[in-house]
Each structure stands twice: as C-alpha cells, then as structure tokens.
C-alpha cells in the first residue's frame, strides 16, 4: 500500500499490525474463542478516533482501554436487562 506524504502510520494500521503479530496466539485458540478474540479487536476499532486523539507513543494502551469500555458497556446493558426482567417477574 502506498501512503502519500505520511511518515507516521495510522492507528488502523497499527491495530492491524498488532493483530498480525498476535496471529500465532490466535491460531492456537479454539475456533469458538477465535470469534470472541476478533470481537475484542472489533471493539477497539469502534474507537479509533479516540485512540488517535490521545497521541500516545504506545497506542495499544489506549486500545485496551477502548476494549474495556466496550465490555463495560455490554455489562451495563446486561445489568439493565436483568433489572427489567426482575421487575417484570415482580
């Protein structure tokens, strides 16, 4: 790929590089776990702008935060759902 006039690689590219670096790790996982693993990176990809905005030398630290954020969101949504089910069942 040709990157015009840019000397710093983008966050998207850095994530892709990290992902390919972890390819042997992923390979050793069960197929069902691989799907979840890919989901973790997908979660980071939903916050590329925020990771970039942090202007850090180690963007993967921010990527981990983004992953945790998505997990926290999922947990909050599930908690909310449980509350509703509880209320419905009195």
């Amino acid at each position, binding site marked *: 790929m*040709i990157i015009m006039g840019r000397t710093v690689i983008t966050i998207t590219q850095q994530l892709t590089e990290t992902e390919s670096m972890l390819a042997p790790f992923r390979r050793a996982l069960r197929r069902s776990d691989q799907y979840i693993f890919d989901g973790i990176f997908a979660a980071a990809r939903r916050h590329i702008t925020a990771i970039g*905005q942090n*202007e850090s*030398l180690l963007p993967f630290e921010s990527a981990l935060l983004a992953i945790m954020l998505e997990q926290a969101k999922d947990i909050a949504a599930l908690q909310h759902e449980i509350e509703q089910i509880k209320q419905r069942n009195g």
Partner: protein
Amino acid sequence: MDEQTGWLFDVYEHPRQGVSVWLLSDQGTRIHLLMDFPITFYAAGDFKLLRQAWIFLRENAQLARTRRQDLFIGERDVLRITLSRPALLANIIADLQRNFPALDYYDADIPISLRFITRTGVHLLGRCHVTHNGNLIQAIEPLDSPWQIEHAPMPLRVMILTPSVDPAHCPPSSLKVKYERVEYSLSVNPLRPFLIGLQADLLRFDPDLILTDHGDTWLFPNLAMWCKESGQQVDVNRDREKDVLTRRANSYFAYGQVVYRGAQAHLFGRWHIDRKNAMMFNEYGLDGVLEQTRVTGLGVQEMARKSPGAGITAMQMLTALKTGVMVPMHKQQAEGRKTLTRLIQADRGGLIYQPIIGIHRDVAQIDFSSMYPSIMVNYNISPENESVGLDALSLDVTRPSGLIPQTLKPLLEKRLQMKQMLSELSTKDCEIKSLRARAAALKWLLVVCFGYLGYKNARFGRIESHEAVTAISRELMLQAKEVAEDLGFTVLHMYVDSLFVQKEGVKDQSQFLPLLDAIRAQTKIAIALDGVYRWIAFPPSRKDARIPVPNRYFGIFQNGEIKVRGIEARRRDTPRWVANGQLKILSYLSKAASLDEIQSYLSHAREFVEQEKRKLKAGQVPVQELIVTQSLSRALDAYRSPSSAARAAGQLQSAGREVAPGQFMHFVFVRGAERVRVWDLGVDARMIDVKRYCEMLDRAVTGLVSGFETAEIRLGI
C-alpha cells in the same frame, strides 16, 4: 489612435514583439493586437557568482542591483534582469541555470498571462478598454473585476466536432460537425473533400472555441498529418503565424495513483478543448472552466486540461506578484525538525469517526462549508507564519494576513455568495445550471488549496501549515460534537467536515436550526444543514459485522432524494448494470415514507434482482452495461501476477496498441482461461461470465438490504 471596448480573449508571447493580445470586441469582431512587454526576473546568491552572471548577461539584458522580498527569508539582495520581450526568457534562463546552478532564481517561470494581469489589471475574459495605434496597444484598462458574480456574458462562437466512434475502438469513418443551427456528418474519406469541407466551415463560422471529443489524441494530430500528405491547408488557428502547439502524453504519480494524461493540442487566437482529455470537464463543464480562468489567470486551454492545483498555484503567484513577493523557481522549504512525539501529534489528517452501525431514523447531516479554506483565512495559516498544530488556535491578530489567506479570501467569499444565491433561486431558473457549475469550479480550487499546502513541489507549501489546518479542524469538530451533546443530540458519525446527529422527537429541519446556530457561534465557521434523512444506514465491514466503516453510508432524505457514499454504485470500476441495479433497489426503498413501511418494498427489490439475473442469463443485457473500467497501475512488465486490467492491457498490446500506466482499461469478464476480454477488441455476448456478474450484483444488493432483513430493525442506541 483607435479605441476598442470588449473582452480579453487570450494573451500569449509573440515571437518578435512583446505579447499577442486577442480581443473580442463589442462590435463582434475578433481583433489581434500586439503590445510591448518587457519582463523582469531575479537572481540571488553569492555576490561573486552574481557579478559573473552580470558579465554574462550585460549584452542581452537591462541589469540592476536591488532588494526584493522572499516570502521565507525576508528581504534579500538580488540582481534584477529585464528582457525586452518574453520570447527571450526561455533560452536565457536555461543558459543561466547551466552556467550558474548555485544561484536562486525568482519570477523566472511565471505564465505570461499572470504577468499581463498584474501589469494591466485586466483579467482573462474580463471587460476592458483599449487604445491602440495600428495593431500596437498604447493603453489598456480594466472595466470589471473577476470577483464580480454577475458579468456581461461573452458571446462565444462554439463549434463542436465529434468522431463517429471512439478512435481507440476503431478508426472513425466520419466527423460530426455542429455549430449554430448547422449539424451534419462529414465523411473522413476521401481525404481531400473532408479537409476542404472542414476548412470551409472554419472560414464561414470562424469559431472562438472548438470543442471536440478526442481532438487532442485523434483529430488534431491526424489533421496535421493529413494536411501534409494531401497539400490541402486547414487553418485551425486564427493566428496564421502559429502552428498548433502539441504536448506529448505522459504518465505521472499523484494522490497515490498513476495518472495518464493524453497528448494535447493547443490553438492560438482560438481555443480547443477536448472533452475527453479535460480533467474536470464532466464535473463543471465549460462554465466552470471559464470561471476558473477568470479567477486564476491561467489560459482557458491550460485550465481545461490541468488540475485545479495548477489554478490555485497561479492564484498564489498573482498574489505574490501584486504584493511584491518574489516567486521562487524551485521550492526551498523542507520539513522542519521535530521530535517523535511532536511528529505523532502533528502528522494526522481530518477527524474521522466510527459510525454507530445500523439503520437510524430522522438523522440530520450538518456540513461545514469550505472548512479548510475557512480555517486558513480565519486563523491566518500561511507558510511564512511559523506555527505548528494547535498553536495556531491562539490567534495573533497583529500579524498581517499571509499569502495564502490573501489569495483565498476573495475566492471563499465569492463561492459563499454564489451558494447563497443558489439557495434563493427557484430550481426552474435558467441561471441555476451555470451558477452551480461555476460554484463547483470554485469549490475545487478551494479543495486543492489545502492539499497544495502540504505538497512537496508546491511553491508556497509548508507541511507544518498543512498540519495546522487539520489540527484545528479536528479541534473544531470535537467542539461541534460537544455543542451537539450539550443540546441533547446523539452524534452518530463525524466525517472530516460533516456531522450526523439525532435526537428523540426531533425530525423537522427547523428543529435542528438552534443546533446549527450554536455550532456556528462556537466555531465561527459557516455551517449548513445538508438535509434530514428519513433513515440512513451505516453498514458494517464485510469482513466482520462488528466493525464500522467510516465512509460507507446510504440514506433517503425527507424529500425522497437518495444519498450514497462508498457503495459499489459510486465506484468507477463497477459495471453499469451492477451500479444501476443498486440504485434501482435504493429507489424502491425511497418509496417507503418511513422505516416502518420498508418491509413491503423489500420484496419488490428482491423480485427486481431475480428479474435482472434472468435477463442477463437470456443475453438481454447489452454488453456495454457490463464493461468494467480499471486503470493500469504500473507498466505491464512490472506485474508479478496480472490484475484484470493488466490482462486487458496485454490483449491490447498483442494487438499492436500502445499501453501506458495510468491509462484506463475497459473490459468485460468472460468465461474460460482468458477471464477478461478488452472492450476495444470486440466482445461477443455469448462469452460473458454470467455467474461472476450475478455474484457482483448479489454482493452489491446484499450490502444494501441485509441491514433491513434482520428480524428486528436496530434503531441505533
């Protein structure tokens, strides 16, 4: 002494006397005048070398020592070199550069039209008053300004010449000639009557503009050859002393891809535009080219063929000439030193957000108008102003307006005025088409201006200014997001200069206006509501449905208008059959008044796809609809495994045709080992790879409808 009033049609060097000036007079005559035109350029550097250059030049030029402004260095000692006429310049500057390569040269490669505009104040296509003695101009003065929106329309005589077929496909048998009410087909063979016929038309109608298809690559090169062979003369130029100026074809690298530019044929005293070789002609047509000529000062024939980048460079040169800043022949500014952290902070583009995947209802799209140029003007971003990143946000109001803001300000204001007028005109107004084209032409100049700040060969570029613009834009986008969230809106997506926002219970355009006002007040940049979508879809990545894609969306505005980005129908390499199929599906979906009714329209869409596939299998789809267009990204022998375009190019080459990188290949997918067949060599409908085309259509349609087909439409939380 005679006097004339009219339009300045063209200016170019005269071989013996200053410049040739063509005037389109109010009486309807086309007048060729000459004007004495001494020109000045500068050399600077080591004094010993300058003294030697002085001795070298003293026979041929008027010389003086003086001080002039360099944009980056400030005032410096220079040798002023004045030549009696512009025709001498090319040889003298070549000699100087050979003998004194260490000197810096300024104002040495400025297009003659820009010098003329600076000296006389009369702009190209502008109204002027001329006093002349015989054919020699004594005085010339402007009667209008290029920044006026309304101007007296120039009564141009246009002749259109189109060959019967694309010459790349097979040799045309005839030429369609069209002017005023005349329209007929002139057979190319036998040659002599063809040439006599064409000459007669040119003499009778005396066109100002010859508009052709393939004139640069086929008509004019062949015409020259045919005239030579037959001894029959065809006067394509009005200036009989001149030959047609031809420029060779070339391939070059720009914006991450190889671009092919065909040969060019320029006329004198008359214009020639080849619609097939004019870069942006499809985008804004003749009205747009003329508008760009007016504001940039580059000749019509140049402007039609060059990128808007050449236009913005010319405008910067005009500003420099007018303000007494010298224009360096070569760029001297390299990127400054910075630390790694600083580089990571600076080297970034515009703000691109990740949209919330799904289909969302009642979404407003808000666009900043000309965001980057506005930032350059508002924050005085110019290469001579030292500022990195957000430092520019703390505005130094005492600093005079820089070269770039000075150049952009009138352009920006003119475009905003035009947009304002467009919003007030009725859609039936006959002015609207022309005004829209002119506004688009100005928009392109503004768009490329930002790119040229960071372009390594730009005369007045500087990467730090380029970075400052994107840094400020990111900051302003985040400010806009915060304003929207403070007012209770959900920001679904942000893309460089657009925001997509939604709020429960808000769906009318007027309800979004307070948000617009608040963003405008915060950012001080003009902002407009592009529209409110009944629904808009941000589809996920094809690889993983959990990953969003920033620049792919489609939606239906409240007025039923469809807007798409990044889907197959927008791509140049998608065959028409697939693109039209995709758009047709969207037009079915656009009939649903709201998202709740969409399911019933989906079944129509599915029926349509099956019907299209049956038509393809039955051979009822014209082969032209299946052509795929891709550019050749490198020379043929540089491919390790050939792409489809390379396979097509290989077939052309085997047939004895020349192919060059950047050239567009037109081909269709066929069955068997051949895989593709280049369109130029003829395609039999029975060869078509039906399965492959059906897959392409399926893929394109699935991308659109899969979001609706889930049991429950996600409403985006």
